[in-house]
């Protein structure tokens, strides 16, 4: 089953309120009784809301065969969103006391994907929170939080674009 909702963002809601609304939807469809459990995802959602990628690529909340696609609207289009467009869908029947397998897949543009993956790893939300790159491929937080912190402290950085250019150039020779 696939359900879609469009959420009004700026100027109807602040970016923080928009991110909270996304988490309300995730809590309703996902596995958490308390929205606070999901709040470590808020900084990443705020960055994506600011970026406006969610206008064309949705956040997808997946639970078994159910998919809830959440888009974001801005500016004059946000003013046209009616309350019905934003109704919280009915809560799914989660097995009481059982393992609930759900996840929230967020689309990330190139410039944010590395930061979002690190951020998710440091916040310890890699179980249910999934960062997908611009090609739709899922990124995994392979580094432990302590490793990620060490890298930000100024270790070696690899310019992957330059590396790719070198590979391409060598391939052409």
């Amino acid at each position, binding site marked *: 089953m696939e359900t879609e909702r469009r959420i009004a963002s*700026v*100027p*109807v*809601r*602040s*970016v*923080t309120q928009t991110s909270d609304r996304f988490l309300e939807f995730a809590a309703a469809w996902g596995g958490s009784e308390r929205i606070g459990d999901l709040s470590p995802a808020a*900084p990443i959602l*705020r*960055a994506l809301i*600011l*970026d*406006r990628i969610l206008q064309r690529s949705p956040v997808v909340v997946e639970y078994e065969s159910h998919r809830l696609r959440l888009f974001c609207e*801005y*500016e*004059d289009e946000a*003013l046209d969103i009616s309350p019905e467009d934003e109704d919280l869908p009915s809560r799914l029947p989660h097995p009481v006391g059982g393992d609930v397998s759900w996840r929230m897949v967020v689309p990330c*543009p190139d*410039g*944010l994907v*590395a*930061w979002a993956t690190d*951020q998710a790893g440091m916040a310890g939300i890699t179980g249910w929170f999934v960062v997908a790159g611009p090609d739709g491929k899922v990124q995994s937080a392979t580094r432990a939080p302590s490793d990620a912190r060490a890298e*930000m402290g*100024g270790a070696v*950085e690899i310019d992957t674009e330059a590396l790719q250019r070198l590979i391409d150039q060598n391939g052409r020779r």
Partner: protein
Amino acid sequence: MTTLVRVNTQALSVTHVAYSIIGIIQAIITELGLGPKYIHENWKALEDGLTTWLEEHSLKTATMEIFTPTDSLVARVDLQISYGSFLDDERQFYSDLTAAKLAARKLGRIAQSCRYRFVVTREYWHTPVSGWSSTTLLSTEGLRRRAVGDLIGSPGIRSDLAIWIR
């Protein structure tokens, strides 16, 4: 009724411009490969400060300075704020992230060791907001200013972007 509409338009304008400023700064730093960590670590101060000062019309300029580890300015982005009544446009609310990203490319190659910070100028009577402290803008010597254009618009507040480059 008129008062209610005006109050609502004012609140919408403040929300739109405050987050569009942060969005444009994020778009530029992301384009430069610097990462949005600083923005999200200072999130509450940024949103509280910008909304408070836009609401009371004390915010004059929002500036992002990009500087070397030795505090030498390498590029600067200014968002100049104008208050008024801008009701006769086709679109009430707009924010041009594409133009901001194009402007970022004009800043040239920025070393990954550079850092950035957010600085605002306000009217002397502004309300103090937690998380902000006094500072002085870094010297723009050796840089030249280039106007980019009107990138953020709303019925009550607008903002023009200018960049400082070598």
